[in-house]
């Protein structure tokens, strides 16, 4: 099992950060996956706040799994999201992304399972420095089922 000190040391880890634009084709396919019609006025589907911030801070789901030292089916679970939308998000505009791991905690379940709660927060700003969105995601890295 991953030593608890090693996983707890991830608290405060800052992602590289960067900028990213959501292109039309990506938003179109993403929206289609949700079984929705396309949104008007080049609006980005709200569910883009899952992967766009992760890619925007210059990391990836794969890198996050490596950071959390997990692999294989059943090793990762979603716990919860808190996504705040301060301004509309549009296609083909560059946004700036910054984020960090804000909490890590080892949890033992009543049935004897063990997982590490991994919580990270990412903020999106526009070129005027206005806060557009903020996401806080909580994942579970399972150590023992």
């Amino acid at each position, binding site marked *: 099992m991953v030593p608890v000190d090693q996983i707890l040391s991830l608290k405060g880890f800052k992602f590289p950060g960067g900028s990213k634009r959501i292109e039309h084709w990506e938003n179109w396919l*993403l929206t289609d996956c949700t079984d929705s019609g396309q949104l008007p006025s080049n609006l980005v589907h709200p569910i883009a706040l899952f*992967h766009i911030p992760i890619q925007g801070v210059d990391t990836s789901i794969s890198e996050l799994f490596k950071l959390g030292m997990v692999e294989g*089916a059943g090793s990762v679970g979603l716990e919860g999201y808190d996504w705040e939308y301060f301004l509309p998000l549009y296609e083909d505009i560059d946004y700036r992304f910054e984020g960090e791991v804000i909490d890590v905690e080892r949890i033992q379940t009543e049935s004897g399972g063990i997982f590490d709660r991994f919580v990270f927060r990412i903020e999106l700003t526009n070129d005027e420095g206005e806060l557009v969105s903020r996401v806080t995601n909580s994942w579970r890295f399972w150590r023992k089922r």
Partner: protein
Amino acid sequence: MSDLEEYLDREVPRLIIEQVDANKMKTMAAILRDPYPVHWDKKANATLGLDGRVINQGPLNLSYIANMLIAWQGPSCIKRLQARFLKPVLDGETVVATGKVVEIIEPEAGRVRVQIWLSRGDDVVLEGEAEIEISN
């Protein structure tokens, strides 16, 4: 909005996803650059007792809630989504997105809190709250 009180305890029109589609999970995995095989490799889930099935991405489960809210109050109505994931949803399953207005939180901005949940039969698989700006 002066008549915001009328929305209290009102249910949001439900959205039914008749059949969660494994092919959409594959496209979604590619968009997300998601290496987790439980969403696209049916054999990967044998160790979980789900051989031959794939697990829908959490964001897709939440998207059904988002689509329900957008159909109700427009494409920019969502100001906050808080969700807790309780159970996995598998390909081929039918899920229902539901919401209910439980609180007026900013009368001047027309903002309300909506209790949200996604269910499969009697099972709630996702629950949470949304902050919505009322425009209709």
